Every structure is written in structure tokens, then in C-alpha cells.
């Protein structure tokens, strides 16, 4: 537990100070969302129709962008060797890094999403559920992504492979995430979708640290 | 008093007008305060350096 705090703490501090991995995500998310109206035109009706989808898809893409680097930088500078030699169970190490990733990318995304939803003219009824769905969905995104990121370490085509591996796994999150918000907008119950999102998060939480840990160990070999 | 309240109401647009004035005031005053603060800090640092310079130890400098 102590190791968890130390590791996550360092990654947080590094993210805030150095690579701006968290800021890139937010900037990317904001600017990407702002670009859509230029592409599809400014008509409020069209924008409102696609608002949820655009916010969710760009959120996923933004997370993917930063996942690429979650272990890669440590791998390249030798830090991963030292983490494997830390004597702590690797799933714990993974969990700490995922927590830091989520705090630096998922949380800012969640905080920014209402503002972007305003520019996209999301109907007012959808805001609460959008945030709730993102809160439940983004940890899954980070957890699944970590497995992919660990698997592609040291391969020559890391980035591509990662998107190929991970994006299909994001489809359920995307479907239930948008469905929840749309249900909220037309006034139908959102609990079922939110429950599914929560279930996905739990599943990812139990499985992916082990899978990612195993992948990391064979990456350093 | 009535008139004043009515004035404050801004014809029903108080929610928009007053925050606008508030925001602008905050922005302008904020940036002035920040500029003054860094200016003061740097002035102090510079004066310290200057008095250091007058020390006999640095006399050899051109």
C-alpha cells in the first residue's frame, strides 16, 4: 500500500511537472472538440445531435494518446528494470501507475467535459449523466489501456499495435456511455447503463493489473 | 431606495451585467497586482545583489 502511494505520487508529480502528459490530453480534448464545429458546421441542431458521441470519442482518443507513454518512458530510460527489481508485486506497481494516469488524464477530462458540452450544445438534461458516465467509464479506459501499453513495450510498432489492441475493447464503454447520456436527455432511466459501466470497471480492475504485470515482466527480459 | 434596487436589477439583466463588470474588474486589477508584485520582488532581489557588489571582495571586477 505504501509502495502504491509512493509510486502513484511520483507519477503524479512528474506528470504535473514534466511531460505534461495530462495537459496534452486536456488540450487535445478541448481543441479536438472545438474543431468539430468547423468540420460539420455550426448549426446547433446538428451539434447537439452528435455532442455526446463527439465528447466520448475524443475522450477515448485523448486517453489513448497518453496511454502510449504510460510504461514506454520508464522502459526506455531503465526505470522499468528498477521497478521490477523493487521487490513489490508487479500488479501493485501497475495499479499505482494506472491510478496516476487516471488522476492526471481521466479527472481533468471529466472536469472539462461540461464546458465542451456547452460549446457542443448538449441539452441541459444530459450534463449530470455525462459526468457520472465518464466517472464510471474512464477508469476502465485507463485499466484496459495499461494492459495494451505493457504488451506492446519493446515491439517496433508499439503505437499502432496499442490502438489496434485497445480501441476495440473500448467499444462497450463507448456504447453504454453514450447510451446513458442519451437516455438522460430523453428522460428515460439511466441506471441500467450506468450499472453496466460500473460492472465493466470492476471487471477491468480485477483482471488487468495481473495481465499488465505479466506483460511487464516479460518486457524487461 | 426603490430606484436603486431597480437600477441594480438592470432591467432584469442583472445576472448578466454585474458578473461581466465583476469579471472585468477582477481581470484588470488582478493583472495589475501581479505585475506590481513581481516588480517589487525583483527590485528587492536587485538591490540585494547591488549591495553585495559593493562588498570589497568583488572590487576587482571591472
Amino acid at each position, binding site marked *: 500500500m*505504501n*509502495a502504491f502511494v*509512493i*509510486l502513484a505520487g*511520483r507519477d503524479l*508529480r*512528474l506528470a504535473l*511537472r*514534466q*511531460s505534461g502528459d495530462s495537459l496534452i490530453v486536456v488540450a487535445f480534448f478541448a481543441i479536438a472538440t472545438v474543431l468539430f464545429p468547423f468540420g460539420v458546421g455550426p448549426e446547433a441542431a446538428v451539434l447537439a445531435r452528435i455532442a455526446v458521441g463527439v465528447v466520448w470519442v475524443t475522450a477515448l482518443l485523448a486517453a489513448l494518446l497518453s496511454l502510449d507513454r504510460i510504461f514506454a518512458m520508464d522502459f*526506455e*530510460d*531503465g*526505470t522499468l*528494470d*528498477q*521497478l*521490477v*527489481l*523493487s*521487490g*513489490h*508485486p508487479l500488479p501493485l506497481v501497475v495499479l499505482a501507475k494506472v491510478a496516476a494516469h487516471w488522476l492526471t488524464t481521466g479527472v481533468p477530462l471529466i472536469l472539462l467535459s461540461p464546458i465542451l458540452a456547452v460549446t457542443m450544445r448538449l441539452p441541459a438534461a444530459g450534463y449530470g449523466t455525462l459526468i457520472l458516465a465518464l466517472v464510471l467509464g474512464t477508469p476502465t479506459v485507463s485499466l484496459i489501456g495499461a494492459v495494451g501499453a505493457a504488451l506492446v513495450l519493446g515491439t517496433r510498432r508499439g503505437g499502432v499495435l496499442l490502438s489496434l489492441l485497445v480501441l476495440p475493447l473500448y467499444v462497450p464503454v463507448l456504447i453504454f456511455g453514450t447510451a446513458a447520456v442519451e437516455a438522460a436527455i430523453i428522460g428515460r432511466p439511466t441506471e441500467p447503463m450506468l450499472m453496466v459501466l460500473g460492472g465493466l470497471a470492476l471487471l477491468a480492475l480485477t483482471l488487468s493489473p495481473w495481465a499488465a504485470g505479466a506483460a511487464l*515482466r516479460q518486457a*524487461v*527480459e | 431606495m426603490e430606484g436603486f434596487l431597480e437600477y441594480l436589477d438592470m432591467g432584469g439583466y442583472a445576472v448578466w451585467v454585474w458578473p461581466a463588470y465583476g469579471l472585468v474588474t477582477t481581470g484588470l486589477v488582478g493583472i495589475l497586482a501581479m505585475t506590481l508584485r513581481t516588480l517589487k520582488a525583483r527590485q528587492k532581489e536587485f538591490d540585494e545583489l547591488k549591495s553585495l557588489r559593493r562588498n570589497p571582495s568583488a572590487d576587482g571586477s571591472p
Partner: protein
Amino acid sequence: MIDDQFVPAAFTGEDLACHRGGRLVFAGLDFEVSPGNALVLRGANGSGKTTLLRLMASLARPATGTLFWGGAVVDDPEAHARRLRFVGHLDAIKLAQTVAENLVFWRALWCGPANEKIVGEAMGALGMAHLADFPVRHLSAGQRHRLALARVIAAPAPLWLLDEPGNALDEKSLAALSQMITVHRARGGMVIFASHGAAFVNDSETLDLGQFAATHVSHWSDDL
């Protein structure tokens, strides 16, 4: 929590062989280090020193052969990891942190609570005390390498595995390295390191990896 687990024991390996990229790098290699001793790995570039050190750290698995710690087979990589410190060709340093922050982090991760004093001592031992609050990005090559070495002092462990620790060090730093190895051995610690250069450690055994080369391509015979 691990801080007081400084329990040296004989570290040996039997009949080790290792593949890299589908090629057998060395085979039939035995080694032995007892508490207080040092083992120098020598051999031409590409002879497998780095490979062997990673294998000793249980970062890689041997193709054949076994490692023993105090006579018992090393089979739990996590437990083994706690007994050793490894300094490789890569520095494992985050450029955005300061020297002290880097040390404090590893100390805390490896040995529980960060101890200000020992971190200060580690920096002092490698002549970096005045650089404590420097961002690593501003350090020269040798200073960075010294930081990687200081980590080993900040978080004590009985076995040190150092890959060319003398690289890029100036004379005074070399003396400091030699000194820190002497102190470590006096406590019963063990050191295994790869080196090409002059011996900066007294009274050490040498393992020449050239002997165990599995493929007998001399790099030189045909070219020079």
C-alpha cells in the same frame, strides 16, 4: 521495512547459459561470490557482461543453469530483487526531477520510509551534496552516472550489480566509487561489476567472459 534486511549470503551460479536475439551468448558459466567479496566481469564488447548481470538480477532468465543464494535456489524474483541493487547502462533517472527527489523516491520505494540523512550521505559520498536541488536535466554525463550510483548507497542491499560503474567518471569520482565499494564490502556486502578499465577495486576476483563465449567469432582476427 526492508532497510534492516541486509543479510549477505554466498551468491553462486552454476552452468549458466544465455540467449540474446536467438544467439547463445555464453554457456557453461559458473561463478561464486561470498560476503565481503568482489567479482569483476571482464571481456570484449559484446561478450555478455551486461547479459550476465541482468541474469544475476533475475531480470532475465537463463537458458540453462541455476542461481543460488546462501545455497538455496533463487526462484522468487521478487524476493531476490530485494537483496540486490542493479545499476545498468541506462540510468533510470527522470530528467524533470531534482537530484534529491530522484534519490528520495528510490529510497522510499525500495526501503520504506525515506530517510533524509541517508539520502544526504549518499549524495555526499559521490560529491553531489551541492547538486541536491539541481534538476537532473542540467547535469553533465558524469554527474548523472554518479546519481545512479548514489542510489545504491541510499538504499542498502547486500548485493550490488554494477554495469561499467567507472564510465564517464572523473578521477575523484572513481576514488569515491572505490571507497564506497570498500565500505560496502567491509559491512559484508558483495559487489559484482563489469569493467574494461583499470581496476579501482583491490583484492577482487575476475571472471573473463571471453572463456565462455559460445560462438567463437573473434571480432578482430579477420579485420585488423
